[in-house]
């Protein structure tokens, strides 16, 4: 029997970085730890926005036990990266964005474009079309 498919985790805003690197560590570069978007989101909801795990699980549309597992996995990955001086890279995983985000490569801002067609989206500050789409698919 195949395992039950995982539900998508709703994520609101994308992380504002591509990853983290240890500094002051000169023994060459280690294998990166891949942190999923939803793990970053779980950590942010719990420890930055100070929600309880059950509130945060409702925000992400998953059950409370699933949230706890996700949060634990986020903590373990970050602890692993710190303990072994490994860089962290963020990866999409099973994150579902509640709205489409764009990242302007020129001025490095993130924005949404409600009600605008994909082909005519431009950066609201510099009008550049050099955008990276951070969407569900």
């Amino acid at each position, binding site marked *: 029997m195949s395992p039950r498919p995982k539900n998508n985790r709703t994520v609101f805003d994308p992380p504002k970085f591509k990853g983290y690197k240890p500094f002051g560590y000169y023994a060459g570069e280690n294998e990166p730890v891949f942190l999923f978007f939803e793990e970053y989101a779980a950590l942010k909801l719990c420890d930055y*926005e100070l929600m309880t795990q059950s509130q945060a699980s409702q925000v992400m549309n998953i059950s409370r036990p699933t949230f706890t597992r996700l949060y634990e996995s986020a903590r373990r990955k970050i602890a692993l990266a710190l303990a072994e001086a490994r860089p962290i890279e963020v990866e999409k995983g099973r994150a579902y964005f*509640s709205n489409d985000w764009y990242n302007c490569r020129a001025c*490095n801002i993130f924005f949404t*474009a*409600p*009600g605008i067609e994909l082909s005519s989206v431009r950066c*609201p500050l510099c009008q550049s079309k050099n955008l990276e789409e951070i969407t569900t698919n």
Partner: protein
Amino acid sequence: MKTAIAAQNSSSETLIDKHFGKCSYFHIYDDESQTTEVIDNPARGIKGCKGDVIVNELIAKNVNAVIAGDFGTKVQQLLNQGQIQMIIHPDTRVSVSEIIELLNHKNK
């Protein structure tokens, strides 16, 4: 189009605020008349969830886009429902006047 910028104080040289809900003032820039209106954060002093108070005020002022360093999760849901564009500016060392200058360029 009106853009609300979350700011740390009421002067135009102030820096943008790193958190939408907790900012002190909103600078509402209208790019048609090229004027800026400064309003107090209507939710200042409220503890806990401030999002609905602010979003209702901004909708009443016909704001189409908001700029801040970061948005909370609950306020993002409300702004989505109101079809308001969110702009996250991770570099919070930028001043309100610099943002207004950038917004101005798009008319030219």
